[in-house]
């Protein structure tokens, strides 16, 4: 039924701009988790150099929101999610090609505070203290970092104590911005996010057992008009060049490197 509901939409969008096939470069739209901004922006020219005639358009946002856009028929070719859940939901509905689905990287969850001034926060447990007035995390329903953060707060038994002062951000980078500006006392982001900002300080890392492992997934969107190029990009993201960029930005990499395309 779902397939039926999006097929006409696809047909409509496809006949809207048929010449794209023949003329100009192939434009691949990549919807990717906000935390991948720097790494993917760096990978983009590497891929384009390898695949002349392919032009990447990077669209960053909360994985849950990106998944939602794909469900609503947004024309996206490759999806990179910061968690398994959004990818699972698209897989179940056949909206991503499950054969192309791979684990891209891992990450770590950390507690950050503004580095400009001394902070009373030294651990996750202290978030429950009344001295901490505002805590930012991603909106758990759409932001994986927020979902992981909530799992950690729950496993530490402070979810209740923190919930009344939690500002739910639209994506993990907004959490970072809230902390950078000093408008919240602390925030929970990925270690790689903390690394891109000079204005936050990492005070603690979430115990790995306190939340599900942070798993970045990549897959080709079923409705892509360029399945060949999209698969090539998927393979490139798992390749050596891309891995070294991801590693340099602090992402954890899955054990086995898949074969180069």
């Amino acid at each position: 039924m779902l397939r039926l509901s999006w097929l006409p939409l696809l047909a409509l969008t496809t006949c809207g701009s048929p010449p794209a096939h023949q003329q100009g470069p192939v434009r691949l739209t990549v919807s990717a988790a906000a935390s991948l901004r720097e790494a993917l922006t760096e990978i983009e020219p590497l891929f384009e150099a390898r695949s002349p005639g392919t032009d990447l358009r990077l669209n960053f946002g909360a994985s849950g929101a990106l998944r939602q856009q794909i469900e609503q028929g947004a024309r996206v070719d490759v999806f990179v999610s910061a968690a398994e859940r959004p990818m699972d939901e698209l897989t179940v509905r056949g909206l991503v090609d499950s054969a192309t689905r791979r684990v891209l990287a891992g990450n770590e969850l950390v507690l950050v505070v503004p580095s400009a001034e001394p902070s009373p926060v030294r651990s996750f447990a202290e978030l429950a203290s009344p001295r901490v007035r505002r805590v930012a995390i991603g909106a758990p329903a759409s932001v994986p970092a927020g979902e992981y953060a909530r799992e950690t707060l729950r496993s530490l038994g402070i979810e209740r104590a923190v919930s009344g002062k939690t500002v739910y951000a639209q994506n993990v980078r907004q959490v970072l911005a809230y902390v950078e500006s000093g408008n919240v006392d602390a925030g929970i982001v990925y270690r790689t996010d903390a690394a891109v900002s000079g204005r936050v300080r990492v005070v603690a890392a979430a115990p790995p057992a306190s939340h599900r492992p942070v798993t970045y997934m990549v897959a080709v969107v079923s409705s892509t008009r360029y399945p060949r190029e999209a698969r090539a990009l998927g393979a490139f993201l798992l390749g050596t060049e891309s891995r070294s960029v991801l590693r340099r930005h602090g992402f954890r990499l899955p054990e086995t490197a898949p074969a180069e395309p």
Partner: protein
Amino acid sequence: MTLDWHPLLLSLRVASAALVLVVVAGTLTARAMTGREFPGKDVVDGLLVLPLVLPPVVTGFLLLFLLGRNGPVGSLLERVFGVQLLFTLHAATLAAAVVSFPLMYQSAKAAFQAVDRRLEDAARTLGAGEARVFLTVTLPLAWPGLVAGTVLAFARSLGEFGATVMVAGNIPGETTTIPLAIFFAADAGEMRAAGAYALLISVVCMALVVGLNAWTRRRVPGWRRGGGRRA
């Protein structure tokens, strides 16, 4: 599906509180700006109407800058009173008030301009003070315009999103008003909740505008007849 009613209640609280600020400030400012000429009046008028034409997110950005912990107003409030305005319902109220102020101001200004000045002058010759002239002559004559401004400003506050999302944060049950709830629900794929909130706010706003129109139609002929008498 059980709908969380907090966003509606918060929106109503924000819009009501903003309305008090806007009606008082808008009416007095409009009164002060009517029938008075001074250098730079157009610029002042432009500044007062600016939030209407500026993208709300720009207004929100300015408020964020001002109210932030390191901003000029925010740091002052923090130092002197130890309070933080950002990410509170007060910030949402302020955002709604700033954005809806021009609607009240414009309506009130037009209403005051339409008041026959000879009637005010007549009251003055009969010994009425300025306050009395305003309360017993100007205000009753300008009433329909003021009511229209009030309703429009309220409806605008109720649906304020762009400026609000910058300064109110998203704290469910505390600062998540209906527009924010719609935005975050749609982001999370909770389309039924988003749709329900959208329907709710549309019905409320529609009712306000229809109510205003009905009221004006009944009220204005009387107002016109009043004008006819004085002509």
